């Protein structure tokens, strides 16, 4: 540091600049390809939406291909509580999921149908399921 800078301010004691407070936190969601869902990327602190967008572009838009960004004031996010809010129930829920039926259904079809016919039929099954 130059002498001028060192000597222009006292090096100890209370700061002369008053505390200004923090910027507001914004939650950032980025979209990696057009048509994809926006995904949570992180947070930035900014004075307003436009600044938040600008910071989000720098922080989260440069590491990977990113085509769109959303910023949301963190205070606008309402969340559940890990300890008191049960979301996914821990009792057996397979009655409401495809995987609760896949095996018994396959076994029942096998008794009735030739393997190649069943294979053809199953081609139209949805691949992505719960």
């Amino acid at each position, binding site marked *: 540091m130059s002498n001028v800078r060192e000597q222009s301010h006292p090096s100890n004691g209370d700061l002369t600049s008053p505390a200004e407070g923090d910027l507001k936190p914004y939650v950032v969601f980025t979209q990696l390809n057009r*048509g994809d869902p926006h995904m949570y990327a992180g947070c930035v602190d900014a004075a307003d939406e436009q600044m938040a967008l600008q910071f989000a572009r720098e922080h989260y838009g440069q590491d990977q291909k990113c085509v769109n960004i959303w910023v949301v004031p963190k205070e606008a996010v309402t969340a559940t509580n890990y300890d008191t809010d049960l979301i996914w129930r821990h009792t057996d829920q397979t009655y*409401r999921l495809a995987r609760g039926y896949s095996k018994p259904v396959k076994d029942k079809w096998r008794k009735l149908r030739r393997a190649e016919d069943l294979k053809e039929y199953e081609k139209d099954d949805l691949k992505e399921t719960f």
Partner: protein
Amino acid sequence: MSGSANVGVHVDHARDEDPAKLAEFEARITAGELLEPDDWMPQAYRQGMLKMAEHHANSEIIGALPEGEWITRAPSLRRKLALTAKVQDEVGHGQMLYRVSQDLGKSRDQMLRDLITGKTKYHNVFNYPAPTWGDIAMIQWLIDGAAILNQKTLADGAYGPYVRTMKRINMEEAFHFKSGEDMVLTLMSGTKTQRQMGQEAFDRWWYPALMFFGPPDKPHAEQLPPMRWRMKTVTNDDLRRRFINRFAPAAIDLGLKIHVVKKDDNGMVIEKKPDENLRLDETTGNWSFTQPDWDEFYRVIRGNGPCNAKRLALRRFSYEQGRWVRHAILRGNAGLPPAA
């Protein structure tokens, strides 16, 4: 289930649009890009997508009605849980699709009101009765099966919010279809009475399932707006062919007979004979079949089906009864307890 949203929805050609913008829009569609609500699009496209998504949303919530009637009469606790979950899913699909429609410019309340007063339509298939548990099994196998075939192709469309919603809906539909298969397989490997119940329900639902994909296509369907703009990606007749190729041989192996039927005004079968046109063409791999009665289709779509009045009356009752709930919620007086 539900949504052959390509049925009963008319889409206009683009008129009075800036040719340069229209060309750019069509180029994006040809390139396989997804469109978002704020993007430029021809007025006819926005209106057409709104009609399609709204029709689909209406179908989801009306489609829950015939199945909902059977929750209290399900034959076992597991079936009751599954049917409750399915009906919940369908109403949830309605919520998602009304959201998509709202972003295209129409208020949800207006959509619910237009449905009840008959200004807008829902899928024709829900105007048929479900008099036995066998019908619930056949609906979940044949009609959900038809809906999945259709919705898989709608998920290849061009309108981003609708495409994403289709993908999510299909994830849940897989459960409906699997549990439908389980019900049909159980019924058809049961007692003589159960198998007969299955056959009679099949006779009621086979033709509504074939009609599900809509009437035969107009000539050059690929060049008309719905397909040119990838609002739908496969023709009605092609979807119907895929459906029959999958379900006819499966039905036969289940021990079901495929009949051409005549129904009374209540949708109950009064005459039936085996479909003599039903056979596999070994060279093409396609099944031939007797076409549905398209006069019946148009009669039902115009409001004269077995259950049109009943379905809308229940929806109207529910809307009128729910007035105090909407009233309280909109004014922040719902008095909900804090989340658990």
